[in-house]
């Protein structure tokens, strides 16, 4: 099992990467991570999801974070509405 790290160290070690974390400790909003045990990391989210899946069994809680900032180049509007038949 890896070592518990705080979010500042995780971001410094894996900048602009997707990081799979075991037993994360969340802030009061339960949205942002304060610390966790890094299980797998990559620039590629798909790689983290597919390879990381096999590394989660020994943990009670799992979360997935991105350590960088996405800057959207377009506005997001309502999508994904199901079409009634």
């Amino acid at each position, binding site marked *: 099992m890896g070592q518990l790290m705080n979010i500042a160290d995780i971001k410094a070690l894996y900048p602009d990467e997707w990081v799979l974390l075991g037993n994360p400790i969340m802030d009061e*909003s339960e949205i*942002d991570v304060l610390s966790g045990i890094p299980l797998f990391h990559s620039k590629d989210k798909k790689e*983290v999801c597919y390879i990381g*899946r096999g590394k989660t069994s020994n943990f009670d809680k*799992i979360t997935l*974070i*991105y350590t960088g900032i996405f800057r959207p180049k377009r506005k997001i*509007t309502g999508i994904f509405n*199901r079409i009634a038949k």
Partner: protein
Amino acid sequence: MTYKFKREPESGLILINIEIDKKYELKMILDTGATNTTIDSNALYLLGYDLKDCIGTVEIETANGIIETEVFEINSFSSVGIEKEKFEIQVYDFIAHGIFSDYNGLLGLDFLEGKKFCIDTNENTITITK
């Protein structure tokens, strides 16, 4: 009960934490303009679900037009004090369709169905009263 949420700095979207199968905590967008809850297929695979678990397909309207997508039944899906068992969600490959963001899906109106709720964008809270 009142729950805090955060806003995505660039877009102002409402970010909310959801928990799946009492183990996986993921960041999603609260989208009351979406009829159904949608999850990124890559995240769904991480949760342990496979294509064989698909229970059907539906057509959905996206920014790129109408597409057919798979529907999965999630054993336990919870957020803002609401827990739904056997919750049906539709699945979409965000990466393949050029959606690059740090959230993993959209929490749609179907999750809040039957609830009375109030979203306060001044205080960044959602209050569920029923």
